[in-house]
């Protein structure tokens, strides 16, 4: 069964089809929220709200592809709202703050955590552009569609954000 059929069945009230839609997209939605909010609990809450809204919006969705882009857009906007509303400070969890180790795996985890923490310092919209580019591997034009933003603004966010991250990573890399 393809995604269009699943959507059609879910629209017809088939709970199993809707469950399939949730499972198909849960990793994308949860990861977007997690990378934006840096809190597993907040990310799960937000992702659940997004899927509840998806359920209410089923009649307006035209295809499986439309559902995917709708989920990206709504998750992104909700993340920005959440960050602005609460002036969200990332809740750094113990498992997300590994000690710097000497093994290659430990160094990799340490670097990954550092990148995510630097990313959290970016303004919300710029952060979302970076997350959509590198998590979802979207092209600037697709990000522009998802965020209702001019393509040039997307490119500008990407260019500036990468420059900031590169500079901070290099500086902190020398300091650590």
């Amino acid at each position, binding site marked *: 069964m393809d995604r269009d059929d699943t959507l059609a069945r879910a629209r017809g009230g088939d709970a199993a089809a809707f469950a399939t839609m949730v499972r198909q997209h849960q*990793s994308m939605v949860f990861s977007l929220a997690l990378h934006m909010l840096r809190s597993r609990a907040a990310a799960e809450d937000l992702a659940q709200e997004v899927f509840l809204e998806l359920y209410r919006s089923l009649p307006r969705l035209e295809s499986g592809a439309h559902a995917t882009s709708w989920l990206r857009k709504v998750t992104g906007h909700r993340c920005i709202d959440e960050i602005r509303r609460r002036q969200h400070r990332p809740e750094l969890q113990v498992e997300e703050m590994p000690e710097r180790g000497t093994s290659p795996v430990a160094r*990799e985890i340490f670097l990954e955590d550092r990148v995510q923490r630097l990313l959290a310092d970016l303004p919300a919209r710029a952060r979302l552009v970076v997350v959509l580019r590198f998590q979802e591997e979207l092209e600037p034009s697709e990000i522009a569609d998802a965020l209702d933003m001019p393509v040039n603004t997307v490119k500008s966010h990407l260019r500036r954000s990468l420059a900031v991250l590169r500079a901070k990573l290099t500086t902190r890399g020398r300091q650590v």
Partner: protein
Amino acid sequence: MNIEHELQRALRRKSAPPDFADRVLARIDPPAASAASRHSPVRQWLAAAAAAALVATGAAQYYAHQQTVAEAERVNQEIRIALQITSEKIALVQRKIDASLSESQR
């Protein structure tokens, strides 16, 4: 350091928590499902039949009550007429007794 490579690695998709989908489904409005069964044709027919039975029983009881009231009124009226006739007869007899008594005294 390749920043784009590091970003791809740091931002790769993470798995949602176990049972995430089940928790979402559990939050979907349960009345939506029960509303469907509330409005099923069988339930609607049963509800209509019960309402009709109640109305019929009430109407029958009201009619019986009205009949009883009318019958009681009719009996009451007959008793009044009977008492009135009896009273008039007694008065007539009394007058005849009084008349015969006064004739015998003369």
